[in-house]
């Protein structure tokens, strides 16, 4: 499976471990609840770690953990739910997070430009055909009116 990261199409090296699945070593992301529950165990395992947050989560809850996280996934329940745009902004601007922020789930290709402006630098579309589409949409606008992350 491939993703877009920093305007490049690359292979995805991360694996998502849901709430009840067995933990594996290596590049894994877990839901926020799992992170909070198994934090010690996860920190002791090998390999980079990530957390997947949903629209109803608050990034403030992982603020102190950000130094240990290489990836934050924003899981869109629907493209109409704009909370994650503010969560991305908060991660970058309020908490100074430097790692990868990746959009996953039900965002739509036409949102990648806005997402990139609020600090999302990676996109994982459901279908491989969307990769080139989303890559080109990142360049929809060459000008903007307001400050954001980018």
């Amino acid at each position: 499976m491939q993703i877009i990261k920093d305007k490049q199409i690359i292979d995805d090296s991360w694996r998502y471990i849901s709430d009840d699945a067995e933990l594996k070593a290596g590049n894994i992301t877990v839901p926020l609840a799992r992170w909070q529950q198994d934090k010690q165990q996860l920190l002791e395992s090998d390999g980079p770690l990530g957390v997947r947050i949903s629209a109803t989560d608050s990034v403030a809850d992982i603020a102190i953990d950000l130094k240990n996280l290489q990836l934050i996934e924003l899981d869109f329940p629907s493209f109409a739910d704009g909370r994650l745009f503010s969560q991305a902004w908060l991660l970058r601007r309020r908490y100074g997070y430097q790692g990868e922020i990746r959009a996953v789930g039900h965002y739509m290709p036409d949102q990648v430009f806005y997402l990139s402006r609020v600090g999302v630098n990676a996109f994982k579309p459901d279908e491989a055909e969307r990769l080139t589409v989303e890559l080109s949409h990142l360049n929809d606008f060459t000008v903007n009116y307001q400050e954001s992350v980018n």
Partner: protein
Amino acid sequence: MYQYNDDDQTLVNERVAQFRRQTGQFLKGEITDDQFRALRLRNGLYIQTHAPMLRIAVPYGLLNSRQLRKIAHIARTYDKNYCHLTTRQNIQFNWPKLEQVPDILAELASVQMHAIQTSGNCIRNTTSDHLAGVCVDEIEDPRPYCEIIRQWSTLHPEFDFLPRKFKIAVSGALHDRAATQFHDIGLHLVKNDAGDIGFRVLVGGGLGRTPVIGQVIKPYLEKKYLLSYLEAILRIYNLFGRRDNMYKARIKILVKESGLENFAALVEQEWLLTKDTQVVSDGRIAALKMQFNAPAYEADAAQDNSFAQRQQENPAFALWVKHNTVAHKVSGYRAVFLSLKAPDAPPGDMTDAQLDTVADLADQYSFGEVRSTHRQNLIFADVKQAGLFPLWQQLDAIKLATPNIGTATDIICCPGLDFCSLANASTIGISKEINEALDNMDYLHDIGDVKINMSGCMNGCAHQSVGHIGVLGVDKKGVEWYQLTLGGSSENEAAIGERLGPAVAKNEVTRAITAILEVYVKQRLDDESFLDMVKRVGIDPFKEQVYANH
């Protein structure tokens, strides 16, 4: 008037290209209905009863003659030769073809116009006082700040998918003509004790299903913090506004459910962390003020004697001057309302021919500029008094001089069941009936300032809940019924109208309104206005009369 720079033009051009691409993808089946809906709404495009409806932005109501001619051209080429003015000072086309909308947007971009964010759950067109810059009661011209907000809110990456739509209005005068108390955010330019001018910020006002009067969240905000403070409110709303029920998703519900104090504390906490970002500099304000400089008024405009003489000779002209023009801050000038409420025309509609003539008249009499009002009329803001008589004659010839501004036939009216897919009841026909019933101008002028607002459904596009007389069309088992309210106002003494009683049948609405006006004429004290009398006596006397034979 604000003129685009290269970046402004690039942005609207790129937006047109983006929407052209999106429309093409939709027509080829590459974008789902749901996704395209969200995208087209953010470009003002609704799918309506008969055809798509395209709402184009008129930022804070300002248009120049070149833009008007373009609107006329679009009405002729892509629509059925007319357009409709909305209560957000915008313009709507009711008959465009979906596949032609990208071309229409390209036409608009060529005259520095667009349809960005005129719909959808995002920050909408910022509205303002239609007499900004020329009225006699102004603290400061609000338009430079409207433009700052327009730019900031346009394609804002963080706030394009809000829980619900979001409306901002700015007023700079003592008299609130922008209904700022009924907006998600209302901004009032005010002077503090030190003599500095800043903003009083109101939040959580709104009309629609649950009308609420906005509350002061910040009594005084320094101008430089305008954007950081707006951003703080929007971020709190975006994060915490309800998304589980679209009828409870406006910021007014969040403010109500949290309590103003708690909501204000959240905003303050957010703002204190960001207040020094995107500071609005004095230099930027000064540069924008230059774009709204006063035109070259003639110093001797007040010397003219013909104006007084014409009024004496011609009572019809004098009547029009009295009702359709207002005082100007510059001696010898007046601001002129063009009434779009002629007896036989749907309220707020204009034909292509009228648009072209109005463009010519604007060039001739008012420095090439026109304004739209939230009561669905137009204004020439800067007409010298010597020009009023010939202007009146020419406006009369195109049926834009009905002397009814501010009277009971200057009705705010949504398109209703005839055009709108959301509507439950028709409105245009009733408005025509009311107009016919009140065709005696002497009687109409004797009644004076009565604002009738009529909406064809609960969404309340015509702001019926703040009409002095509000009319709301509802559907009961497939039959159109109309609820009446009395005593609403969107101005300084903001009030939500009180329900008069049971809804009346369609063929009873006009009779009910004339009955209400008869009670007023009989029971008013001296020169008491309709609204004042309703406040004094309550709704009972009106109720008795309206429901007397039922």
